[in-house]
């Protein structure tokens, strides 16, 4: 572990939770999970820890990559342990404490319990909490890390999950060019300005500022990929009216989170805009907001894309606090 390298050192200042002024109040509260430098460091170690998978080959960070705002760059569907392929595209990890549900179908409603889903999924990490706790208990490194955080070497699910929450909870992106423009600290080009106007007209009903999602479930008109056997939100709610509804994802850092959609079917933003702007490509059950989107001409699409690129937040993408301390 690189605890001598100042690049990876975490100070009290590093773990101060700063709520952006224009963001709504978060859903998750740290009141029963006080963020400390030691807790954050433990969470970071666990996030990048291969022991969390059955054969110790993959960690959360294997698929949730910092450069992609913790999505999985260039992967439509991700591969977990033993090369198994899942049926959904990996979402980014940004501004999670403002989400009241997680996963494309919103099946997880507790940020603390979220890691259990990929841990248990046989296509992802195929492990159990019992297996992980056993491995961590056998590790001097983890006994020391837990001691640093909690004052004793008891390693249990609650402590592990809360430490991970301290780490992912601080993944806050609010310093893109768009954010600076909103604060009056940056200037948009005429194209970016035009793109913002088009965005607000066509996209913001669901991709609402400042989170760029309204955290609702929508059918955006994609024809289902029958090979994936995915009914979306209906699996969780059991309501037939929720079939093929998926959670509106955030568009922050969209430049880096390709490919797009719940099944990663669109590699480029222009593909996304072509889809939204072509009514014939939508299913009849597409959301009314999607049906209202007007077709855009080439210039409009270009400007809209230029606006979307202003959501790239290099401070977040290169934030050293979230780097893998064991990267060789």
């Amino acid at each position, binding site marked *: 572990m690189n605890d001598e390298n100042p690049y990876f050192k975490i100070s009290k200042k590093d773990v101060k939770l700063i709520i952006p002024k224009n963001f709504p109040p978060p859903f998750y509260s740290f009141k029963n*999970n006080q963020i400390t430098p030691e807790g954050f460091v433990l969470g970071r170690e666990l996030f990048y820890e291969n022991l969390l998978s059955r054969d110790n080959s993959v960690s959360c960070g294997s698929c949730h990559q910092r450069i992609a705002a913790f999505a999985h760059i260039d992967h439509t569907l991700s591969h977990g342990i033993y090369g198994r392929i899942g049926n959904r595209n990996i979402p980014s990890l940004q501004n999670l404490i403002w989400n009241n549900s997680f996963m494309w179908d919103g099946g997880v409603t507790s940020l603390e*319990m979220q890691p259990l889903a990929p841990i*248990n999924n046989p296509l992802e990490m195929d492990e159990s909490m019992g297996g992980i706790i056993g491995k961590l208990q056998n590790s001097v490194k983890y006994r020391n890390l837990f001691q640093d955080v909690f004052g004793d070497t008891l390693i*249990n699910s609650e402590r592990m999950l809360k430490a991970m*929450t301290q780490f992912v909870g601080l993944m806050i992106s609010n310093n893109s060019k768009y954010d600076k423009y909103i604060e009056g600290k940056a200037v948009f080009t005429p194209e970016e300005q035009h793109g913002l106007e088009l965005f607000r007209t066509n996209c913001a009903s669901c991709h609402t500022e400042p989170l760029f999602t309204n955290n609702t479930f929508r059918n955006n008109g994609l024809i289902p990929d029958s090979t994936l056997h995915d009914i979306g939100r209906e*699996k969780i709610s059991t309501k037939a009216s929720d079939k093929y509804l998926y959670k509106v994802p955030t568009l922050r850092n969209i430049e880096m989170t390709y490919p797009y959609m719940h099944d990663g079917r669109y590699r480029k933003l222009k593909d996304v805009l072509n889809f939204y702007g072509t009514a014939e490509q939508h299913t009849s059950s597409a959301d009314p907001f999607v049906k209202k989107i007007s077709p855009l001409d080439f210039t409009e699409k270009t400007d809209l894309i230029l606006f979307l690129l202003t959501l790239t937040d290099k401070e977040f993408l290169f934030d050293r606090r979230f780097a893998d301390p064991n990267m060789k």
Partner: protein
Amino acid sequence: MTRTIEFKAGIIALYILLPFFSLSQKSKNPPEGILLNFNHFVGDKLLVLDDTTYVNELNQPYIVTKFNYYISQIYLLKDNGKEYSIPNHFLISEDKIETKKIVLEKIPSGKYTSIRFILGVDSLHNCSGAQSGALDPINAMFWTWNTGYIFLKLEGKSTLSSAIGNTLEYHIGGYRMPNNSIRTISLPFKNPIVIEKKQMTEINMKTDISEILKAPTTIDFKITPTVNTLLNAKMIADNYSDIFTIIGINGIKY
């Protein structure tokens, strides 16, 4: 799970339950209160995992390989109408014999006429994030893909099962309408229980698995060998609201 981890999990379970499992010489004064002793049956037969064959309402044979459930929100009702509550959660597992005895200590003296509890975990605790003890996700009673606890797990096999491997699998959860599987169980005592010093009263409960598979809905293993999502969970939950009866109350005097 490997044997070592099962052993460790068993030790952890004991460690958690030790404060409650206190009929030991360690306490200076013998505990007073109530001992809930859960006896698991299938109809009139004692439950024996794996080896014993039972039959359901439709005469379909089956064995049981796993049986776990949560009880919580225990209330003891006094004869003056007041209630005494025990806020803890308990995970009862057929294969962990120590979990089938729950000691409720330091109950205020008085006359108690009935007990009430829920089978399941209340909505607050389904939403409270990572917890320890009975609610620790290490117990494998938590749905990782649909946040919430599995209130009752009944697993087994039947040659009449239409599922692969002759599997029977009933994982029942759900804490929000319309899929709310929490059930309140109220059991009056034939005679009031008097709690006084130096007396432990043992309530022998019968948990009847056969009732999970019938009344109001008779389960046919050919049609419903598994319920492990919210779909149909309510059907099983309505069945399991009557699995508990009191089969005996004994006072243990010191």
